[in-house]
Every structure is written in structure tokens, then in C-alpha cells.
């Protein structure tokens, strides 16, 4: 088990280094590092000094090491567009994105898994087909369109819910949360639903497919042959075996949610990291892009590790060594 963790950690480091490399290349060849640190209005002398200080006249390896060193401390320089520290910008906006992603995850899982189970158990009946068609609609509607439609219905036509921003937030040290105010809740509902739809549809289809597979296995047949009740067969045996592979996918989805938040944040003008990233892409603001990239990679890597550990906890086949005692 220890070996396994070490191996995964090593893989994680490799991935992070690769991403750091890509980010570094961005800095070197796409943007101008000097400009990104000093800003647009710097004298030639200042540029030359900085060039020397930064070691831009040094070898590639030295520069890369320095970059990684800085990155690990969260130092990415100044935003080309806003002139502020990139790390500050991102830290300010991180809570907004995280809350949005968590909200969407709760909706996607809380609705997706039961619906998927329902669609598997009631296969062929009308309810199940309706659910499956809706899920197909869910993956055919682009996220931004869902957001726009929700705004059209609930903000423009009905006027029930607000359509942009986060509403009232409370500050706790470095963390600002919108979940403790009624206004904050009103603001998060539509964006969270928008962000969750795609994942919900995916999870539902996945759970259904897995459950159908599991329902055809020999051990389910044997469980039925032993006269176990439907509840025991479906929810005791089938569901547990279904959820094990679902864990991996769901874990990956959390990281995906944070990235897809880009779109939702744009539609609802939600002040999160994603919105920041879009503005950076439009403006070719390399430092922000690079920092966002590294952060997302870090989140993914951590989530992957956690999911792998969860697998260990849930599947006994991975935990215990196979014994070959006796016949």
C-alpha cells in the first residue's frame, strides 16, 4: 500500500512538472516576462536590470528551476491586464469558484445517482425512457445556453432570481462566502444548476450503464437464486458494486466542474477564477493563464490521489493480498 502511494505521488510530481513546463514555455516564448513583471511602462534600463536579475541571460535549465521555485511559492508576477499580483487575484476569486463547483457537485450527485438507479431498475418503462431522453438533452445543451435559458425564464420573465454576481458575501479571514446569506443563496442557485446539468446527465447515464451491467452478473443471479428480497439484491448487492467504478469518474468530475465553471461564470458574471481566466485569454494575459493552469493541474492531481485512496478503502480486492491456502 505504501508503495502504491509513493508511486502515485511520483506520478503526480511528473504531471505537475509537465504542466509547469508548459506554463514556463508560455512565459518564455509567448509573452514577454519582463513586461509581465514590470508592467507596460518601464524604461529600457529597468528592463535590462530586470533581465539580469531574472537571469534571463542564463541557461534554460536555470531559468526553469527558478520558475518552478517561484511557482511553488505561488509567485507568478503581475497580471498584464490589471497590473496586480497574480497570486492575489486568484486567491481573491478562488472561494467563489469553489463554492459554485461544490454546489453543482452536490446537485449532480444528489440527483444523478438516484435517477441513474431508477433508470436501470425500471428499464424499458416509460419513466426510465423519459429520464434517459432528458439526460440526452442534458449532454446536448451547451452549458452557456442552459444559463441563458434559465436567466430568460427566471430573471427576465418571472423576475424571481437574480442573474449576475454573487450577492451579499461574508468575509472570514481570507475566505469570502455567499452561503451564509439569503441573498447569497438566491444568487448561487441558477449558476449552480447550470453548471451541474452536464455532469448530472453524465453521472446518470454512467450509473445506469454500470447498474445494468452489474444486474447481469452471476453473483446477482445467484443472489436471486438464494431468494434474497429485491431490496437486498438491488440496493445491497447491485448498488454497492455499481458505485465503486462510479467513484473514480465522479472524483474526476469535481476537477472538471472547477474548469467548466469558466463558462458559467461568464454567463452569470460570477466573480470567480474562471471569469478571470477568460478575460486573460481574451487579453493574452500570460501570467494569469499560466497561474490558472498550474492551479487547475494541482487540483486535479490532488483529487485523483484522493480518489485512488478512496478506491483502496472501498474495494477489498485491492487491500488484502490474495491467499492461496488450501483447496
Amino acid at each position: 500500500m505504501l508503495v502504491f502511494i509513493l508511486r502515485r505521488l511520483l506520478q503526480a510530481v511528473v504531471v505537475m512538472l509537465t504542466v509547469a513546463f508548459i506554463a514556463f514555455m508560455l512565459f518564455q516564448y509567448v509573452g514577454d516576462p519582463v513586461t509581465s513583471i514590470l508592467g507596460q511602462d518601464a524604461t529600457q534600463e529597468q528592463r535590462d536590470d530586470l533581465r539580469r536579475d531574472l537571469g534571463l541571460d542564463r541557461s534554460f535549465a536555470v531559468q526553469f528551476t527558478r520558475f518552478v521555485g517561484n511557482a511553488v511559492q505561488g509567485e507568478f508576477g503581475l497580471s498584464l491586464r490589471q497590473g496586480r499580483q497574480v497570486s492575489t487575484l486568484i486567491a481573491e476569486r478562488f472561494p467563489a469558484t469553489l463554492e459554485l463547483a461544490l454546489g453543482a457537485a452536490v446537485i449532480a450527485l444528489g440527483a444523478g445517482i438516484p435517477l441513474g438507479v431508477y433508470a436501470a431498475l425500471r428499464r424499458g418503462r416509460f419513466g426510465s425512457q423519459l429520464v434517459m431522453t432528458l439526460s440526452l438533452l442534458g449532454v446536448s445543451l451547451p452549458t452557456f445556453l442552459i444559463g441563458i435559458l434559465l436567466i430568460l425564464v427566471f430573471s427576465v420573465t418571472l423576475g424571481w432570481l437574480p442573474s449576475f454576481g454573487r450577492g451579499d458575501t461574508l468575509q472570514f479571514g481570507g475566505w469570502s462566502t455567499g452561503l451564509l446569506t439569503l441573498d447569497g443563496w438566491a444568487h448561487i442557485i441558477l449558476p449552480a444548476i447550470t453548471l451541474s446539468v452536464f455532469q448530472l446527465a453524465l453521472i446518470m447515464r454512467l450509473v445506469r450503464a454500470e447498474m445494468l451491467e452489474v444486474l447481469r452478473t452471476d453473483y446477482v443471479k445467484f443472489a436471486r437464486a438464494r431468494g434474497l428480497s429485491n431490496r437486498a439484491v438491488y440496493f445491497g448487492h447491485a448498488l454497492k458494486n455499481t458505485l465503486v467504478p462510479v467513484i473514480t469518474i465522479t472524483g474526476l468530475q469535481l476537477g472538471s466542474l472547477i474548469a467548466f465553471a469558466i463558462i458559467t461564470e461568464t454567463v452569470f458574471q460570477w466573480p470567480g477564477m474562471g471569469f478571470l481566466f477568460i478575460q486573460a485569454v481574451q487579453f493574452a494575459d500570460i501570467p494569469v493563464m499560466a497561474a490558472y493552469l498550474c492551479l487547475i493541474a494541482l487540483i486535479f492531481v490532488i483529487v485523483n490521489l484522493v480518489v485512488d485512496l478512496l478506491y483502496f478503502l472501498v474495494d477489498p480486492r485491492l487491500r488484502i493480498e490474495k491467499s492461496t491456502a488450501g483447496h
Partner: protein
Amino acid sequence: MSTPSPTAAPNWLARWRDSDIWHSFITSPMAMLAGFIAFLCIFVSLFAPWVSPHNPFDLATLNLSDARLPPAWMEGGDKRFLLGTDDQGRDLLSALFYGARLSLAVGLASVLLSVLVGVGLGLLSGFAGGKVDAFIMRVCDVMLSFPSILVALLINGVGRAMFPNAQDTLALGVLVLAIALTGWVQYARTVRGSTLVERNKEYVQAARVIGVAPLRIMFKHVLPNVLGPVLVLATIQVAAAILTEATLSFLGVGVPPTSPSLGTLIRIGNDFLFSGEWWITIFPGVMLVLIALSVNLLGDWLRDALNPRLR
């Protein structure tokens, strides 16, 4: 009771009509409806210049005084513009057709590229084995860590930064490349898996002993086995590619603004939602969803039809 098998070998048409795929298509109203809609969309896209009443991409024909007209059946509408106009005076109906054409073109091109890259790398990885295989799989792992939208945005962003004054065609090319690079991993993995399975089979080893070139083995035996799953994947990915392109255009980093795709139109319309001019957003939205939905339905049906266990 059963019918005895025919004495003469049936021609390919009869075989097709008797096949399970055709049968499951005909007995599924969903599949037929989806097929019909997809066919319609492809038709109007291919023949957009001939089917549309106007050419929305031709800047010379646009007249700003025609801007933001509502659909013809509403008050203030103009019979010339059946579904209304956008903020530049473009006829929405024509823009729908041309936009659909652009979306489909980008979608199909990127999936084609994806399939080529993915299948190629998968075959290479499976057959070469060793370090090459390990390297390609590492790349796959890293790429899978990234959500597609991020990859597309990044490549696009980098492209913009590197070529700030790019020509339209170059911008489109970067877009296609960006979308293509988000999807190739799945093909690579599937094909690699099948290649590994086939490679260990005795007949392949026997062929190698005789001296048949590995390339030939790959094409003759591995490819037919993976065509099914690759086809299903590709169909579903076309829908995803179209949606990705629409999203990128909506975010303002997709197709060039002078040749609007469905996503661009939606973005334009978004600004006018609150003033009640809903048609600029809704009609392109409906068209987009129809295309994506019908392609997804076809992909779903295809997967069920090709899966021998579900029959």
C-alpha cells in the same frame, strides 16, 4: 418455424435490409426521427448558399437600418427576414444555415483530425510497445487530467498571442486543432487496447513468424475490430465538438466575428435579452440543440445497435 436459407447468395442490398442494424433503426422511432433531423441539418448546411434567402457573411449586403427586427409574424417584423435580424442586420434564417454549416464543418473536421491522431497513436503505441508505448500513455494521462474546454481555450489563447493579426483561415485552423486535441485520447486508448489484445493472439504471432509485415497485420485485423467503438465514439464526439466550438465562440474566442457561427449569434443575442429581443439568441440556440441532440441520439442508437449483447 424458420425460413430455410436462400440458395443463391443475396446481394448486398438484401443483406443490409435483413441486417440487425437496419432492423433496429426502422423499429426505433427515435433513431429515425434523429436521422431525419440530422439529415435536414446536414442538407441545409451543405447547400446553405442555395437554400438561404440572404448571405449573412457578405458584409456588403448588410444594412444597419435592418438591425434587430423581430420575426416576420410579430409586430414590426419584415417579410424579407422570416426569423428577424441580429444587431448587424443579418437575416437570422440565413445566419442559422450558414452558422450551422460552419459549426458542422468545424465539428467534423476536428473529429476527423482527432480520429486520425488518436487511432494512429493508439496503433503505434500498441504495436511498438516498450518506451514508445509508455511515453504515449503518459501523455494520455496528462491530457486526461485536463478538461477539454481548458485545453481548447489554452491552445486558442496561445494561438492568439502568437499570431495576433491572424488571417481568418488560420484562426479557424487553430480552432479546429484546439478542439481536435481535446478528444484524441479516447481513440488512442481504445485502439491501443484492441491492438494489445490482437497482438498476443496466436495468428498474429504466426503471421510474424512467416514474415508478414506488422503494418499489414494492423490494418487487416486490428482496425476492423476497433471500427465499431471508434465510430460510436466519433459520432458522440461530433456533437461534443460542435458544442465546444459554440462555447468558444460564445466566449468570444472562437470563430472570427465576421463569419458568425451559432455560438457567436447566441453571444450577440445575449446582450439584448433584457430588452426583450429574444429571437437573436433563441433561434440559433434551438438550431444548435437540434443538431447536437440528433447527432447524440444517432450515436446512442449506433452504440446499442453495434453492441451484440444488448440484442
